[in-house]
């Protein structure tokens, strides 16, 4: 039986123009890695096309230990308060290699 370790998955849906800002935020808070997927859809701020460069959306996924999650959420909240449109949700996940996601604590 493979042992699984609990981690938090932070998902953010936003406009692709925000990508650089989010990457900076992850680097600033010592996130060890993240994944960005092109996304399309519709929401409170209107429709987002699937085209990058034509107002496309991205789905950003980052797995972090619970101890690191709060500081990221606070940074995200500051962005929300400034008016940026971000859809944020957190879920519990289980990983096989927890050392991959614990860059800061090492």
């Amino acid at each position, binding site marked *: 039986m493979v042992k699984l370790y609990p981690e938090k998955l932070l998902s953010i849906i936003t406009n692709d*123009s925000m990508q650089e*800002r989010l990457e900076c935020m992850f680097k600033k808070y010592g996130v060890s890695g993240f994944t960005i997927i092109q996304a399309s859809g519709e929401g409170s*701020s*209107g429709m987002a*096309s699937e085209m*990058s*460069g*034509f107002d496309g959306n991205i789905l950003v996924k980052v797995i972090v230990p619970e101890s690191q999650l709060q500081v990221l959420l606070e940074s995200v909240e500051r962005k929300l308060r400034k008016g940026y449109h971000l859809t944020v949700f957190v879920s519990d996940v289980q990983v096989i290699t927890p050392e991959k996601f614990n860059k800061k604590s090492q």
Partner: protein
Amino acid sequence: MSSLSNLLLPAVLFFALGVIARLIKSDLRFPPDLAKVLSIYLLMAIGLHGGYELAKADLVIAMNSIMWALILGFTLPIIGYLALVMTRKVSPLDAAAISAHYGSVSAGTFLTAIAYLDNVGVTYETYPLIMLAVMESPAIVVGLILAAKARHSIAAREKAPVSGGGAVISPPDNSADNPGGKFSELLRDAFTNGSVVILIGSMVIGAISTPSGMQQLFPFIDEIFMGVLCLFLFDMGMVAARRIGDFRQVGWLLALFGIVMPLIGGVVGAYVGHAILGFSVGGATLVAVLGASASYIAVPPAMRLAIPEANPSFYLTLSLGITFPFNVIVGIPIYHSLVQAMAAG
């Protein structure tokens, strides 16, 4: 009839086909990044071509064109902003974001105008091409300044804290100056925008390349150009049609702005091109088109970052769903007739 000849231009017909395909809910879909790829090609081809021609151009006229492009880029958003504030339909921050789109330019509209002029056999100067490159960015700066001003007046008006904490719209006092980050960063973004780099870079390459080297490129930049433009407008027709559905959300008064503002910009541009810069009818028509067109590639992401409080549905529906189709289908022949009337008068 010049207006009919515009409607029967293959590029415009493909644009209409794109709109129809979306309206009849066809399953036709282009690869997500096709329009982006095509616009890179179009900007590169027009830049190389223009640079090649500009190498023979008069430096004084070129500098004069650049100066007037800057004046247009800085003035048109202010006119748009004042008009929008008068409608009382949008917040000052929305007005700042929308008007920035109208001071900037749409290369797609400009290229359609070139196809139109080629079709009716009207020659034009190459200087408006430099103006196209120059006019991409100043409006973004004006948008930022107008937004900063609007934030200060909102902050002054709302000294009392807004109830319902957690609300997304009420920025804390310390962000009143600029939530988008440092002003210098936004300026850098505005002037290093992808379209500007491709266009100016290709113009420089076109200007300094050897004529024989350029001759080899002509099949790429000349012969297939109109075909690629058709494909680009076909795709853009579908993109625009997706925005037309948001028409009801913006309301008729704002939709009217999407038609009146390009007409105002067109008149101002026509006057600058004809009376001030002394261009031919073709050249002045292109300047009018620059004045009339609204950006939908460079400015929206810049406004998302710089004025996040503004509603993207407003500026995208107006620039992409209303003004772009209006200019492509009926605007261009109107600006051409206007310049013809000015030249005759």
